[in-house]
């Protein structure tokens, strides 16, 4: 974190590689727009860099970075709503449903980034594309047994990575 605070490109790259996708997921989910999500990622890391000198390096950076990302998304949402207003008057501070469950989205995306590529491919096919194991096997061109074993390993690994989800949101 000290190297990140100094602006060391390798440290910035390291933090981005670990959390960049999770920041993007939270922002994209909340804002529903890729361009705004990209802006949110840039602002999040810039704000984190500015605040890093005061961050306790002994702490887990994930909740800290998540809090910054969410606040940035809130600000961008309100800025866009304000620009959309015909009279230029600000909206009442009510956020849309898309901001709910942001922490769970962060955690799941962070966990997915720790799953091997071949297992993540199975998770994407079954959960995102809604394919059965048979359809996944056909789509990926691998035996059905391989799909089933990878699916089990992937879900077992993911369940372990999400073990602290509830205590973190409690």
């Amino acid at each position, binding site marked *: 974190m000290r190297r990140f605070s100094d*602006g060391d*490109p390798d440290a*910035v*790259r390291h933090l*981005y590689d670990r959390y*960049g*996708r999770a920041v*993007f*997921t939270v922002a*994209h*989910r909340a804002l529903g727009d*890729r361009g705004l999500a*990209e802006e949110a*990622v*840039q602002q999040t*890391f*810039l*704000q984190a*860099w*500015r*605040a890093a000198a*005061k*961050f*306790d390096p002994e702490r887990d950076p994930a909740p*800290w970075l998540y*809090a*910054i990302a*969410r*606040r940035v998304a809130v*600000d961008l949402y*309100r*800025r866009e709503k304000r620009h959309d207003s015909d009279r230029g008057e*600000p*909206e*009442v*501070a009510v956020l849309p449903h898309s901001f709910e*469950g*942001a*922490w*769970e*989205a962060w*955690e*799941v*995306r962070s*966990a*997915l980034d720790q799953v091997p590529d071949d297992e993540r491919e199975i998770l994407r096919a*079954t*959960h*995102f594309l*809604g394919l059965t194991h048979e359809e996944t096997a056909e789509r990926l061109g691998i035996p059905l047994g391989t799909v089933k074993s990878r*699916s*089990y390993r992937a*879900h*077992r690994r*993911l*369940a372990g990575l*999400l*073990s602290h*989800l*509830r205590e973190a949101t409690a």
Partner: protein
Amino acid sequence: MNCDEFRAQYLAGENNAATAAHLNHCSACRSRRRDLEAGRIALMDPATWEEPPPELENQVIGLISGNRKTARTRLGRVERWVRPVAAAAAVVIAAGVYGLVRTPAPDWRIAMPGTDLAPRATSTVAGWNTESGTRMVVTIEGLDAAPAGYVYEFWLSQGPLHISAGTFSGGGEIDLWTGVARADFPRLWVTLEPLDDDEAPSRQTVLDTGA
């Protein structure tokens, strides 16, 4: 079926007699059920699978690198100017450095006193108005570090509308940025916030300019 097998199957959405039986007698897995359901819902969310563009990483690195160079350039100019003066008067130097680092002078400055929750705390906010928003430097003294699980949050408000300019963990000099214009938001204040999903300001106000 053991707990690992149950959790993998439950997360996969495979609810059958075996998982039901395990859930019936395993309190540990019953306590994890809500996590697994939340995880399963998030896995089906298209946003979870959206990939940022590859060039975004270099844009972030470039953004931070650019800001770092700007800061160093300012400090470098200050050092070159300060060195010959240093022999003359150290006190003057300190004031000169402060003034040059913050060049140009802030467009506005306002005191933000401590509330009953932080009676020893004092602060000032210096602001620079730009076309894309407002940069603020908050100088805080006498404010305890935020306890674990909490952060301080800086707000700009106009009536019921509250805009966060960022979070920090304690006193000192804090550099903040917001995309809104200061003129639209007369009240500046700081709250102590738990790290949770609640986007509204807490009731624990520690510094406040008043409306």
